[in-house]
C-alpha cells in the first residue's frame, strides 16, 4: 500500500506557511530575549525561604528593595524553587561582587533568601560570544548544504542533486524558525531567554532535521535507481510510505528521552529540552510533509514549464 502523501501538498504548505509567517511576525514584533551570556549583565537565582504557605515577595517589592543599587531594568522570572519554597531568577545589569553581596543582604531583609546561583557576564564577553555563535550557525548551515550536495551528487535525473539540497535547506529553516517563534512568544510572556543551551539545541535540530530528510531522500534515490525514473511522484510517495515506520520510531524514541528530560530533569535543562522537542517534531514533520512534497511540486512545475516551452515552438 502506498500513502498518497503528495496529494495534499497544498494543505501542508498552508499549515507551514501560516506557522512560518506567524513566527516571522512574532520575531519582528516581540523580538527575542537574549540571555546575559550574549548581552552582558547579571543573573541571580534565589529561593525565598518564606514561612509555610506565604507567597514570595512580589516583583514590585523586589524591584523596590533594590532600587538604590541603580540596576537598570530588573526582570523577575519565577521558578519552581526548591523543596516547596518559591524561587525566582533576577536579571539586571552587570555588578561587582561587593554589590552582589549587598543585594543579597537587601533581599534577606525582605524575606530569608538563599542564593542558588549567580552569573555575571561583562559586555565584551557577551559581544564575543554573539560573534562566535553567529559564525557557528553560518558554518553549520554551509557545511550541511555542502554535505547534502555531495551525498546526492550521483542523482541527477529526473530531479538534479542541487534541488535536493535546496529543499532540505528550506525544511531546515522551517525547523529552526518554528522553535524560535515559540521562544519569542515565551520570551514575551514569561521572560524566557535565548541562552547558550537553546543555541546548542537549535544547532542540534539542524543536524537532526537534515538527518531525517537524508534518510527519506536516500530511499527516493534508491528507488529511482531500482525502478527507473518514470513516475517521480509515485516513487516519492512509495519511498515515504516505506520510511514512515522508521520516521515515527526515530522521532518517538528521541521524544521519549526529551520529554522525560523536560518533566524530570532539572530546571536548567528544561528550556533546552523544550527547544529540542519543538524542533525535532517540526523536523520530522517537515521531512515528510515539506521537503519531499516540495521536491515533487518543483519537479511538476519544471515539467509544466518544459511542456509549455515545447508547445510554443
Amino acid at each position, binding site marked *: 500500500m502506498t500513502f498518497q502523501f503528495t496529494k495534499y501538498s497544498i494543505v501542508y504548505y498552508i499549515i507551514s506557511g501560516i506557522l512560518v509567517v506567524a513566527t516571522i511576525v512574532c520575531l519582528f514584533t516581540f523580538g527575542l530575549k537574549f540571555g546575559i551570556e550574549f548581552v552582558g549583565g547579571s543573573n541571580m537565582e534565589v529561593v525565598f525561604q518564606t514561612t509555610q504557605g506565604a507567597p514570595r515577595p512580589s516583583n514590585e517589592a523586589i524591584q523596590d528593595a533594590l532600587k538604590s543599587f541603580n540596576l537598570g531594568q530588573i526582570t523577575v522570572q519565577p521558578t519552581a524553587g526548591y523543596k516547596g519554597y518559591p524561587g525566582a531568577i533576577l536579571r539586571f545589569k552587570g555588578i561587582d561582587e561587593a554589590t552582589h553581596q549587598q543585594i543579597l543582604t537587601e533581599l534577606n531583609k525582605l524575606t530569608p533568601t*538563599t*542564593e542558588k546561583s549567580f*552569573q555575571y557576564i561583562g559586555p565584551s564577553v557577551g559581544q564575543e560570544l554573539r560573534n562566535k555563535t553567529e*559564525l557557528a550557525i553560518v558554518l*553549520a548551515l554551509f557545511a550541511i548544504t555542502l554535505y547534502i550536495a555531495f551525498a546526492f551528487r550521483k542523482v541527477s535525473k529526473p530531479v538534479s542533486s542541487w534541488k535536493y539540497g535546496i529543499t532540505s535547506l528550506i525544511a531546515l529553516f522551517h525547523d529552526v524558525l518554528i522553535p524560535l517563534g515559540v521562544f519569542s512568544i515565551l520570551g514575551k510572556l514569561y521572560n524566557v531567554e535565548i541562552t547558550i543551551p537553546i543555541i546548542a539545541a537549535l544547532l542540534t535540530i539542524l543536524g537532526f532535521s537534515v538527518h531525517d530528510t537524508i534518510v527519506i531522500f536516500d530511499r527516493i534515490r534508491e528507488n529511482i535507481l531500482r525502478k527507473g525514473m518514470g513516475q517521480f511522484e509515485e516513487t516519492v510517495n512509495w519511498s515515504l510510505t516505506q520510511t514512515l515506520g522508521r520516521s515515527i520510531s526515530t522521532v518517538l524514541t*528521541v521524544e*521519549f528521552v526529551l520529554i522525560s*528530560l523536560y*518533566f524530570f530533569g532539572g530546571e536548567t535543562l528544561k528550556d533546552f529540552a523544550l527547544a529540542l522537542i519543538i524542533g525535532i517534531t517540526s523536523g520530522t514533520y517537515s521531512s515528510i510533509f515539506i521537503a519531499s512534497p516540495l521536491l515533487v511540486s518543483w519537479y511538476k512545475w519544471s515539467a509544466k514549464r518544459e511542456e509549455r516551452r515545447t508547445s510554443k515552438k
Partner: protein
Amino acid sequence: MAQKYYIFIGVLVIAVVAGIFAYPNYFNQGVDFLNQKMLWTLPHFPEKPYVLGLDLQGGVSLVYQADLSQTADKTASMAGLRDVIERRVNMFGVSEPVVEVQGQDRLSVELPGVTNVEQAIQMIGQTPYLEFDEERAQTETQQILDKIKEVQDAQAKGQDISKITDWQTALQNPYFKPTELTGKYLTKATVVFDQTTYKPQIQLKFDSDGAKIFADVTGRNINKPLAIYLDGFSIIDTSGDGKIDNQDLYAPKVQNKITGGDAVITGDMSNATATSIASRLNSGALPVKIGAPISQQTVGPTLGSVSLQKSLVAALYGLLAVVIFMVVFYRFPGLLASIALVIYVAITLAIFKLIPVTMSLSGIGGFILSIGMAVDANILIFARMKEEIKAGRGLAGAIDEGFKRAWPSIRDSNFNSLIVCAILFFMATSFIKGFAFTLALGILVSLFSAIFITRIFLMVFVGKWAEKAKWLL
C-alpha cells in the same frame, strides 16, 4: 562459524567490565559479601569517580582580562600570571582548582566548592608582591620563637592571647625580616647558562634605585642567605613535596657586595626549576594587573547536586521508555537492540570516566539525547529487515540485506550530526563544548553498539527456531 561465538563472548566481557567500571558499587558490595561469607580475599574493582563540572558540584568560575599593555612578552606574562594565581588558589585550600589561560589575555579560574566568593575574588585580584628578606640576628630570632611558644601555650590553655604583651610579634617570621628591596626595583629576571659548566643560572637586573638598595642589602649580608618571597611564600618548592608551604624556603647566599644592579643566582638546579624561579621573579617584577572578573558564575552546592540527580532520573526514565518501545515494536530484535543500548550506556559512561570527561549539565544533556538517537541506526536496520522478510527473503538474507541497505543512510545522517558537533565544539564555550563532545562520543559509540553489537547478537540468537516464529521478528 565458531568465530561469532568468540566475538559474542568478547562483547559480553567488554560490556560487563565497562558496566562495573562505570558503576562499581554493586560489584564491590558483592565482593565484600562473598569475602565475608566464604572468607575469600577477592579484590575490589578500582573505583574512579566521575569528574564533575562546576555546575554539578557547586563552586565559582571566574574569567579575568589581563592588562598586558605594559608587557612585551605577552605569552610569558600570562604564564607567569597563571602561575601566581594558581599558587594563591592552592593556598586557599580548594580541592581541585583549574587555572587556565584562554586565548591571548584571558585567565579562567575555576574553584569547586568555594562559598566565600568575595574573599576569593579579593585574593585573586591582588597584584603579586615580591620581597627580598634578610636573616634576623640570633637574639631576635630567639625572642620571636619564645613569643610564639608563649602564645601557643596560652592557646592550648584556652587563654585570651591578646592579653600577652607584644603578641603580634609571634606572627612574624622568626628567621627572616623584610628589607627595603621589593619587586618594584627589579627590572627583569632571565635564565642564562654558565659559559663553562652549561648549568642554568638566573640573572637579575635592578633599576638604578634598586641597584643602590641591592648593594646596601648585599653589603650587610655577605655570606648570609637572602630569602625571596612571592605573596609571602617561597618562590619555589624546595622541600620537593609538591606544594609550597611554610616548610619551603628559597634563599640564595650572598657571596659579595653587588654594585651596579646586576646579579646572578647560581646553584645546582634543573632547567625547569630555573625557568620557574625566573618566571616567578618576573611576575613580581612586572606585575600584570587583572582587576575584577569580567565574568563570574557561582553555583550553590544544592543546585548542582539536585540538577545532577534530576537529570539522572530523567535519563533512566527515558532509557526505560525507549526499551519498552523497542520491545513492543520490534519484538525480538528490539529486545536485542535494547540490550545493545544498555551496553552502549555502560561503555559511554566508562569512557567518560576513563578519559576523563568533565561532566557538566550540558554534557549530561547531550548524553541523554544520544540515548534517544542511539537506537536510530537499529530502527533503520530493523525496518529494512522487516521489508526484506515481507518481500520473501530468507531470514539470514534479510538480516544481511537489512544491514547492507540501511548503511548509507546511517552513514550520511550520522556524519551530518558529527559535522554539527565539530562546529559546536570549536565554538569554544564550555557549555556547548561539553554538549558537543558527549553527543559526538555518543554518536560514535552508538554506531558501534547499534551496528556491530546488535549484529553479533542477531547472528548468535537468530537460528532455525526463528523460521517458525517469524512473528517475533
